[in-house]
């Protein structure tokens, strides 16, 4: 059983939760997180926001019963973490564009820290949050509130793109990446139950057939995902 180090509010409904201890994980992987005893039933899949020798952090938005409970956690409270899970972003060379929409910025900060060269494009519908840490580690950070962040990106200058955010954004980005011939990796979101590959509630339709977001994902090559058939995202 781990304990909460801090749980800091970073916007009207988003928080960064830090848990003490030495945890493993690569950029784009996630943990199943549970900070309560019985209710709600299931743990919550949260991608790794940051990781170091002292602890692990998760950036999350309060959207329902589980994240409401998470937001109530205080320093010293017990929390259960199961992970790291999923495949994570691949190691790539060159200059990488990190494209995050809203809470989709969550898995990109660890990528920003680990990649030698990155430029972050962070789009928000109402209020920007957690953008300052990107400025420390990225070559350039473009923040946009309202409108589409994609309008500000020229993919041709990049060797690869890592993206996470709303389905419409990822789908549009997939088309753009195909046009410019840029390698695109997307981290997709899904409801999960087990988080380890057993229950198949997170199956994602891809060109190779169904793939489990929790094991074969959450990171897929942009062109792999059959966006139109994935009507949950």
């Amino acid at each position, binding site marked *: 059983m781990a304990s909460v180090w801090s749980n800091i509010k970073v916007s009207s409904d988003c928080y960064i939760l830090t848990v003490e201890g030495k945890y493993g994980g690569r950029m784009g992987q996630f943990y199943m997180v549970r900070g309560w005893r019985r209710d709600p039933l299931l743990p919550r899949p949260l991608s790794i926001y940051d990781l170091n020798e002292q602890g692990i952090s998760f950036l999350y938005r309060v959207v329902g019963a589980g994240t409401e409970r998470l937001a109530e956690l205080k320093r010293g409270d017990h929390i259960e973490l199961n992970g790291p899970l999923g495949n994570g972003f691949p190691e790539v060379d060159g200059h990488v564009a990190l494209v995050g929409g809203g809470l989709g910025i969550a898995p990109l900060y660890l990528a920003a820290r680990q990649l030698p060269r990155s430029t972050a494009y962070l789009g928000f519908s109402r209020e920007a949050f957690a953008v300052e840490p990107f400025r420390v580690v990225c070559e350039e950070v473009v923040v946009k509130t309202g409108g589409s962040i994609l309008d500000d990106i020229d993919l041709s200058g990049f060797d690869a793109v890592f993206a996470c955010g709303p389905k419409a954004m990822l789908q549009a980005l997939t088309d753009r990446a195909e046009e410019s011939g840029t390698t695109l990796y997307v981290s997709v979101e899904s409801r999960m139950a087990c988080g380890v590959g057993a229950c198949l509630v997170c199956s994602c*339709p891809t060109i190779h057939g169904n793939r489990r977001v929790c094991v074969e994902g959450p990171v897929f090559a942009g062109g792999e995902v059959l966006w139109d058939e994935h009507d*949950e995202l």
Partner: protein
Amino acid sequence: MNMTSCSIAGVMLRNPVIMASGTFGYGREYAAYYPLSELGGIATKGLTLHPRSGNPGVRVWETSSGMMNSVGLENPGVDAFISRELDWMLEQDTAVLVNLGGGTLEEYIEGAMRIDTACRERYRADGKLPVLLELNISCPNVKEGGMAFGIETEQARQVIRAVRAVTQLPLVVKLSPNARDIVEMACMCEAEGADAISLINTVLAMKIDILSRRSIFHQPYAGLSGPAIKPIALRMVHQTAKAVSIPVIGMGGITSAEDAIEFVMAGATAIQVGTWNFVNPRAGAELAAGIADWMQREGVASLDEIRGIV
């Protein structure tokens, strides 16, 4: 032989804890958390003769003390299971319940025959194989089949009689709580030569998105599981165990050794754990150990002492 061991249709289980179909894959994912030999058995993900890609749309929704699923029997098909998973499972030193569903009578028969053949090819020197066929006539998430056979006793009879005729494997029939008459259904299974029954599968349930004014799920209904259904499951296990003399495998919302003991007291020979695996990936091993601890603490030497005591 140890204090928690039990026998179902001649297959000896190390302990009464079986992982429920659909919640444990084929065991590989959980082998990272504990040795699967600590389990009494594993029921495979529900198989069908042909591969199925499952249901589109939302597949899981939480409720108070439970969850609904609408996975829709996504599985690689019987042949892929036999070639890719069966041998690995048999190496895990635990009993295997091969869970078979179907949309038509013919699919059930052909699926059962292929599983039977694969098992015959693998019989060990002593002529034994720790494999049982768990016939799923109760999946609520498949439009044309599955549970259609699990509601009416006479329709279920057709499936069980046909499958019984083509396999010598120990036959467990998994019953739906949505059956019109669960006791009648259980008695029919026994009369048709089933070696055991397992119950309950998920309870047919629903969630409406009031903004879109539609069901959350692509199929209108989904299957409710977890602690929310435990009282119903316990009652049905009690009712059926009183009515049949074949072993009853009880399941539905078990989260602790104490829950498992309740099911044994209601008459269950073994129990299955499903949804709780999602909450605690070590649930199976912890429950098995917890049952042994409870027996020691309470001075119960064998589960036979308390089975069906209520």
